[in-house]
């Protein structure tokens, strides 16, 4: 097991290096120029543009830029944003707490409704209860979370003249203001997220409920609640955990539109702004960060499998 864990951790290095190379090359293949963008619409002479490109090191050959970047990373320096001149660590550090908190809240909301409703739908298969839950979950899949967010804001604005605070307050500073800012985005994102998990829970529980050991448990006279919760649900959770974990990783950097709708200063918005500005250093650092999150989440999920299913052993 230890050898497996060490092996998995070491394998992360080439994976992340591959991501770094791909990101570096792809971003430079995309047309556009941060300097031209910075002075767009202004009567700025070409000499200033060329001077700024030189200062930012963008006039160097691509291989030289790559060597500079990798060398900085090897020294633990993710560099400076080409757009703001501030360190990438500072730029990310401001946004990461919000994105993490939103991802956690959305996940909690999603899990809190997806697993109970998924199990109920499976147990009450083909009854009106099942149909209502399925319609509810299909609704979550069909409606984009940002649209749900816009509708929520419109309703609260029209009915109560209230909208979530547009400035994020850290939870330790003012928990109420913090929750008021994040509750609607967490619900709008969590609903879609729960729909995926709900359908997965329903189908896996249905599958497990037909297994021999479940029939045996019932034959022994166990109460239905015990059969479902202790024998069926635990075994049905493996794929559900995978879906939930990958969705969680996605939420950290993938809520671009939702963040814009609610004016949340998160990682997704930062990444899109960085791409729009062609802020190479920041894009590269953010993609590396998100790739690291995905790789780590996958690793943790594999470890959770062992805890959930005693038959699984890594060697």
């Amino acid at each position: 097991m230890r050898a497996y864990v060490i092996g998995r951790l070491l394998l992360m290095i080439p994976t992340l290096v591959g991501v770094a190379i791909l990101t570096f090359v792809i971003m430079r293949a995309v047309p556009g120029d941060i300097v031209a963008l910075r002075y767009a619409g202004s009567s700025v002479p070409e000499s200033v543009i060329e001077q700024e490109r030189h200062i930012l090191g963008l006039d160097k050959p691509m291989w030289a830029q790559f060597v500079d970047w990798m060398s900085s990373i090897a020294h633990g320096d993710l560099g400076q944003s080409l757009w703001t001149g501030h360190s990438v660590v500072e730029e990310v550090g401001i946004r990461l707490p919000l994105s993490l908190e939103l991802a956690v809240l959305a996940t909690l909301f999603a899990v809190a409704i997806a697993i109970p409703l998924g199990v109920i739908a499976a147990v009450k298969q083909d009854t009106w209860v099942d149909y209502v839950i399925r319609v509810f979950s299909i609704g979550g899949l069909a409606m984009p979370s940002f649209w749900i967010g816009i509708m929520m804001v419109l309703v609260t604005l029209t009915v109560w003249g209230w909208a979530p605070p547009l400035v994020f307050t850290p939870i330790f500073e003012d928990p109420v203001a913090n929750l008021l800012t994040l509750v609607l985005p967490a619900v709008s994102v969590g609903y879609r997220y729960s729909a995926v998990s709900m359908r997965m829970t329903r189908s896996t529980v249905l599958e497990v409920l037909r297994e021999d050991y479940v029939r045996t448990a019932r034959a022994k006279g166990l109460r239905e609640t015990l059969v479902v919760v202790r024998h069926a649900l635990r075994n049905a959770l493996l794929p559900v955990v995978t879906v939930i974990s990958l969705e969680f990783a996605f939420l950290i950097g993938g809520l671009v539109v939702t963040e814009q709708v609610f004016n949340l200063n998160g990682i997704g918005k930062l990444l899109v702004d960085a791409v729009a500005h062609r802020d190479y250093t920041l894009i590269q650092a953010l993609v590396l960060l998100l790739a690291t999150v995905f790789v780590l989440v996958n690793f943790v999920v594999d470890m959770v499998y062992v805890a959930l299913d005693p038959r699984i052993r890594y060697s």
Partner: protein
Amino acid sequence: MPRFHIALALAVALVAAACAGQAKPATSGAPSVVTGGEKPQPGGTLTFVVNAEPPSFDGHRETTFALLHPIAPHYSLLYKFDPSDLTKVIPDAAADMPQVSADKLTVTVKLRTDVKFHDGTPMTSDDVVATYNKIIFPPQGVLSPRAGAYAVVEKIDAPDKATVTFKLKYPSASFQTNLASPWNFIYSAAKLKGDIHFYEKNVMGTGPFTYVSNTKGQDWIGKKNPDYFGKDKDGTKLPYLDGYKALIITDANAEVTAIRSKQAAIEFRGFTPQQRDDLSRALPNDLAIQEAPWICVNYITPNTKKKPFDDVRVRQALNLAIDRWAGSEALQKITIVKDVGGLMRPKGPFAQSDEALQKIQGFGKDGKAAKEQAKKLLADAGVPNLSFKFLNRNITTPYEPIAVYLIDQWKQVGITATHDVKETSAYLGDQRAGNFDVTLDFNCDFLDEPDLQLAKFWSASKAGKGLNFAYYDDDKLDGMIDAQSRETDPGKRLKIVADIEKYAMEEKAYQWPVLWWYRIIPYLSTVRGWKIGSNHYTNQDLTTVWLTKK
């Protein structure tokens, strides 16, 4: 009744906008306050929206309004535009209007002696000289995009602690007004000496508000500077506000939500007609609106290096096909454009009258006849069924509706234009590489000034490099632009500018404006003392802004 209020505010704004004229010098430094007879009430914090984030904090280096709106309140300028009459330049940190020598080659500026930086050090001529040297003669490694606007300056001296002189190479028509450029924040000579890049990441000025904090991507906070030198005409110390908070909100819906939910009182750049109407409906009793013509415009720019756009007849046909007057009627209802104009802002100090403008090809009111003429020119040029890609930017307001209108107009003379919409960075890349047939270009300025508005018309391989995307070289046009810049007689300058418009838009048909933008600011009526101008760069130091206790 609410409708009456809105209509009244609109009427006042329109009258004010219509009165906008040439920037003219004033003799008094104290700004009067736009109160409508009310006495300004001190106190309160103004929360406003900025829909982009400043890249760095250095006004000398950047060109975006996103820097000016949150950061300008921390700084003073030598001169600024009067908040109550935005056509008039008044002294800011200067003690009086500049004195010009008889040969028009020396401009002397006397400074106030009561101006202090936020760290308590007094501002002297050393600071002004260091500031303007950084702007006009930037040292190696320092970027100054507006250095070219001061190419006329030979050197800057400080004969004493309260006097600065600018020695000019030749008499300039625009130099004095350019001293009111909103970007020319006065910096501390000591800070610049310690680190010439200090102001890229730090704030330390002499303005009405001191720096409190900035959360990147979220907000910018300033508080009242108790040592600010400014006073209003009644002798009351400025600013009136206790502080301000700029919220960075980039999504258009979220901007409207911010005003509608009263989390912000105003956004200073501008909203669309639909956003204005939405807010008017939602806040019938709490909203005021100001509107004004805007010194921003889109140009249709054919790439003269590509066939058939090297043929003047084809370019003239492209221009003649467009009925701007009908376009104005249609587009002003849905986007932020309105007035038909030439190269200078319509109704501005350098604009031709509508009658004179209509005599220029493509600007007449008989759209049908112009289209017939366009068809004939295309046939003569051998391209009756011309087709090309029309490069545009992926920004809805106002680029998309303008492009849709143009494509339809061209279709009516047999031209097929394919809308080639690209993300801003790629769009700019294609423009700079000349990788397009025809593009929708754009320009915004802080001042009605031919030197600024004609910057895109210099020869592409000379002063117009990186600006002129029509990619022509024309020594005659360069000579005309240079001549107007040196002409200090206003009447003669106006004539040269009119000749340039005729030559560049008709005779050579290099590039043409579509419609000039129109600025719409709906805001909470608790905000007082702020008046809309014809640009979104000036009048942002918030000295005279105040909030009613309503």
